[in-house]
């Protein structure tokens, strides 16, 4: 008990102190500065606090911090979903949306195919389909952080190519979360209570969507009444914890369920902007807590994790580049876009970490320790080289016009 309280306090202090101190490194070389600006160093802090070094956040402590996980995963899903007002998504040309699905879909296929083949060679069981699906789902997501930082720092000429890459990086997580939820649902071999005895995975998926929509509608109803900031927070936290907790209890993906809740609330009339602003202010502390927790469960000594990370990085990078190439050359865009658009979409950062932790908790993979080790190692390497790649894309985008 004492260690759980100490662990929770360490997390709280690190999140609050890190939130204030870690997101400004003005004078450092760009590669290192971006590594710090994305907060990736907190993975290493988590590793130091974990069982391999200080032991403050060992396995039993992390297991007892389960509500923090359901809160965090639910938070990330909700804040992502709350952005997605259909009217705003469709304010951009439809080709933007098609580009997003094409590049994310191709990346998924690259990574899924390689890992399915690899796991099948190692295991031979058809059940390897599920972890391969989950890894493919993580791979198709991009982080908008690096592109936003580079656009801010280099101030490239305003062009539609940059809007396109920011649009894709901001939205391709939809496909990732959905495929990821499908992987979690396919783990179920029996249908939900009262469900017919066929297609249990599909039934759990439908249940995930229905539950998310219900939670979104409940959030909408609760925020219709005139309430103060504190009451609003109680409503939001209540919805997040309940949705996240129920999802974890039934081995569903909290990220997906709360994303659906967020999308539902965002597309109903009401004070969604107020809800978004209330939770947006806490995005970085939550992100830091998750990075630390992910670092604490990370087992960097797993050689097989490092080998798989190499496969993951290779297939994901190839998928992003090919996906971007196909989207840039096949779609009838009204402007020229660099075929290297995939280089700007390599960063993963917090999105991949949240999904890795979801994987760790929901058991969509048969060996969560190995999958988490692979994803965290890949993210660390990825965050070191993705800024240079994104910079290359931006440099090639200067001549493009809308």
């Amino acid at each position: 008990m004492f260690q759980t309280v100490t662990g929770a306090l360490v997390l709280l202090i690190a999140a609050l102190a890190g939130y204030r101190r870690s997101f400004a490194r003005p004078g450092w070389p760009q590669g290192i500065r971006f590594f710090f600006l994305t907060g990736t160093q907190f993975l290493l802090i988590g590793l130091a606090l974990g069982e391999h070094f200080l032991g403050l956040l060992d396995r039993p402590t992390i297991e007892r911090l389960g509500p923090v996980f359901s809160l965090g995963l639910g938070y990330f899903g909700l804040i992502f979903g709350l952005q997605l007002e259909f009217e705003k998504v469709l304010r951009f040309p439809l080709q933007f949306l098609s580009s997003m699905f094409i590049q994310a879909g191709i990346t998924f296929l690259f990574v899924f195919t390689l890992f399915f083949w690899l796991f099948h060679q190692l295991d031979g069981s058809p059940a390897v389909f599920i972890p391969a699906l989950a890894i493919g789902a993580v791979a198709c997501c991009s982080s908008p952080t690096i592109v936003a930082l580079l656009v801010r720092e280099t101030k490239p000429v305003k062009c539609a190519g940059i809007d396109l890459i920011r649009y894709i990086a901001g939205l391709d997580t939809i496909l990732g979360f959905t495929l990821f939820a499908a992987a979690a649902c396919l783990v179920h071999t029996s249908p939900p209570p009262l469900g017919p005895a066929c297609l249990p995975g599909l039934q759990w998926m439908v249940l995930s969507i229905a539950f998310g929509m219900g939670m979104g509608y409940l959030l909408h109803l609760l925020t219709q009444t005139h309430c103060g900031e504190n009451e609003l927070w109680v409503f939001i936290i209540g919805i997040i914890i309940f949705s996240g907790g129920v999802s974890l209890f039934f081995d569903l993906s909290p990220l997906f369920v709360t994303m659906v809740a967020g999308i539902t609330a965002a597309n109903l009339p009401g004070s969604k902007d107020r809800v978004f602003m209330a939770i947006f202010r806490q995005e970085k502390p939550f992100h830091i807590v998750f990075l630390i927790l992910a670092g604490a469960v990370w087992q960097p000594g797993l050689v097989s994790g490092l080998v798989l990370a190499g496969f993951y990085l290779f297939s994901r990078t190839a998928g992003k580049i090919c996906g971007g190439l196909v989207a840039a050359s096949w779609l009838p865009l009204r402007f020229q876009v660099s075929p290297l658009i995939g280089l700007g979409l390599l960063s993963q950062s917090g999105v991949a970490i949240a999904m890795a932790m979801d994987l760790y908790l929901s058991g969509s993979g048969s060996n969560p320790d190995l999958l988490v080790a692979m994803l965290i190692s890949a993210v660390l390497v990825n965050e070191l080289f993705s800024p240079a790649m994104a910079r290359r894309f931006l440099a090639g985008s200067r001549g493009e016009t809308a």
Partner: protein
Amino acid sequence: MSNDSATGMELLVIVVKTHHQVEEILTGFLELGIRGATVADVRGMGQIISMEIPIFTGFKSLFPGWGTDTHMILSVVDAASRQKAVEVGREVCGDFSSPGSGILFTLPINHAEGLSEEIG
């Protein structure tokens, strides 16, 4: 309605950080009989030059003004109401001495047209 500086009208400007504070201040104004105020969503210098880095909110960051929740309340008040209106601002935001708690100031108005009559 037309007023010159001799009438003693002042522009009260309050910059606050949350929508909730705006509602509290406007409710306080109504209780004082001040029924006219304009509220604008604004961005402070710190919000513009600081590194606002999207982690999960990349799509929202495509739209101007995302991630800001600062509001400016503008109200033309007479000398009698000014001090009470300032007190309302202090009640809601504190004494404005701590950083980030908000800003309050008044300016004399030389000429004004189109102002509403105060309630009561």
